[in-house]
């Protein structure tokens, strides 16, 4: 049953990947007009140079020919070369990916580690001041624009702190330009963007843990556990939390695609050399091959994340069956 389900999902995924990449290419192709990527790097190009450039990049052919060629190459593991700087797209992705993963994985981890205890506290002390306080924070977390929160953090921890002569945090980049790169330096750069990113996750997941926990604690098996004299701690954490966390896994799984694209705005605000910013910059320059490569990659992650969430959900909760 599981195999059949996976095969069906895999088939659907192929359709989705084809759709996403095709839409991306059509959008870029419609947008570009007669512009040739890289054309403004050299003002002395003659018309026949430009024609040669177009032919070199494969842009003289209709976009569907370009698409099929691109697909064929991707199937052979070749993502092509950037149309702007000529270096392999894969090397760009591999160059930026670790930074993005460092940022988003930290944010997700911070979100999970903080939201579960906060959600449990909210559920156990339902209606208390602590609960209300947590509610307010999470409602605020949904409403605050990420980029603005980033600006505020930079304003306080970089600008104001520096003006007062206190130890301040670097406002941009992943490492110091000179002599940076050790763990302490990376952490200093990481802390603000990761906080901004995790704030949203924290709001979302702590709410969710709370309501899931409340629902589980009202179940019959919890009453049974209490009735047979089990200690409250054991009831809450062994029977309650374990069941309450199952739906949270789906929710976290759905954020996995955000590992690549979710941090784009934060990456721009903090000048983080990640993959989202790469796409942002390259899309503005019509670097077809890089944009296609990154989109392809990000879509794969979306699909893998969804699938992983579904499978994990079923593995952890034997009540779920694949239909």
């Amino acid at each position, binding site marked *: 049953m599981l195999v059949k389900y996976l095969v069906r999902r895999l088939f659907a995924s192929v359709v989705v990947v084809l759709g*996403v990449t095709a839409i991306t290419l059509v*959008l870029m192709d*419609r947008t570009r007009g007669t512009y040739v990527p890289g054309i403004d790097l050299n003002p002395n190009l003659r018309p026949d140079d430009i024609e040669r450039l177009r032919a070199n990049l494969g842009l003289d052919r209709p976009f569907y020919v370009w698409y099929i060629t691109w697909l064929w190459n991707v199937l052979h593991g070749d993502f092509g070369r950037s149309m702007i700087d000529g270096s392999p797209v894969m090397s760009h992705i591999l160059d930026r990916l670790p930074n993005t993963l460092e940022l988003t994985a930290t944010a997700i981890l911070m979100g999970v580690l903080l939201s579960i205890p906060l959600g449990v506290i909210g559920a156990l002390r339902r209606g208390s001041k602590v609960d209300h306080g947590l509610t307010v924070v999470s409602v605020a977390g949904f409403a605050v*624009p990420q980029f603005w929160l980033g*600006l505020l953090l930079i*304003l306080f921890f970089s600008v104001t702190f520096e003006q007062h002569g206190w130890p301040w945090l670097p406002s941009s980049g992943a490492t110091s330009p000179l002599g940076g790169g050790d763990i302490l330096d990376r952490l200093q750069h990481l802390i603000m963007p990761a906080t901004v990113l995790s704030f949203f996750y924290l709001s979302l997941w702590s709410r969710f843990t709370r309501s899931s926990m409340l629902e589980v604690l009202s179940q019959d098996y919890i009453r049974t556990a209490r009735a047979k004299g089990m200690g409250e701690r054991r009831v809450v954490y062994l029977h309650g939390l374990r069941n309450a966390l199952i739906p949270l896994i789906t929710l976290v799984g759905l954020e996995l695609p955000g590992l690549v694209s979710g941090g784009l705005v934060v990456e721009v605000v903090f000048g983080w050399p990640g993959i989202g910013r790469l*796409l*942002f910059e390259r899309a503005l320059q019509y670097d077809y091959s890089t944009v296609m490569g990154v989109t392809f990659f990000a879509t794969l992650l979306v699909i893998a994340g969804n699938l992983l969430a579904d499978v994990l959900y079923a593995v952890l909760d034997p009540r779920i069956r694949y239909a």
Partner: protein
Amino acid sequence: MSMLGQTPATEIEAPISTFEGAATRPAQSYWNESWERLRANRIGMGAGILIVILGAIAIAAPLFTQFLTHYEPYRLDLLSTFQPPGQPHLLGTDELGRDTLTRLIYGGRVSLGVAFLTVGLSLTLGTTVGLVAGYYGRWVDDILMRIVDTVLSIPAIFLFILMSILFRPNPITLAMIIASVGWGGVARLVRGEVLSVKQRDFIMATRSIGARDLRLIAIHLLPNVLPVLIVAASLGVGQIILIEAALDFLGLGIQPPTASWGNMLTNAQSYFFHSVWLVYFPGVTIFITVLASNVFGNAVRDAFDPRLK
């Protein structure tokens, strides 16, 4: 093959509660009851009223700027750049000497307008697709839902970037860009509702007396999915304001000199050292508006769909 959660519990509960309702007070329509529940929620209603006020200010922007701030949103005054909040500029001026409060008021027109337009577009398209997919089922459903899967699998921000470059957004195209992703979720939601409503007896009864497809969809299915739509709409506004602000901030949304809450922050980072109010005010405005939308949205959800509380 069966999914858990399809327990008959709800079917048992339903008759009891209607019986009790009938015994204690006169029967009320679903809409009346929901409205009563919404009105009883003070915080929710307060948030709703705040949204209405913000909307009214945005619509009446020229009046406010004429009688309250006395400045034009696009008038440059290079002799009074970076004025701090106070008199005569209540919330200060920006790098070109434009009055911040005036621009916030005019920015509200853009930001709120785009948000409501986006919600309207997403709902219209999403509902149509969801109704058709859910009602006809089979290959129609398969094709439409694969399209929805595809749309929802593109990292939304990537799509926004590509489309913003394509369309050079004005408020209307920007709303279309954001709605081009937003409809997918609505379609899924509506399709799910239709699938369950379709099973009910009254649909079969209506069909048996000869109702055509269009009539069934428009007169019998649509009213039954309305509650879900109302909830989706009221919860969606805040998120869309945030998305729009982020796109404007990145320079992909509303283009200067047109003021929007997002693009007023684009250059704010450069003025950290002397003019922090340029960072504070637009952000606070976005925050309060989204907060009010979300609180009102939650209240609407609690009122219209008590199951979800």
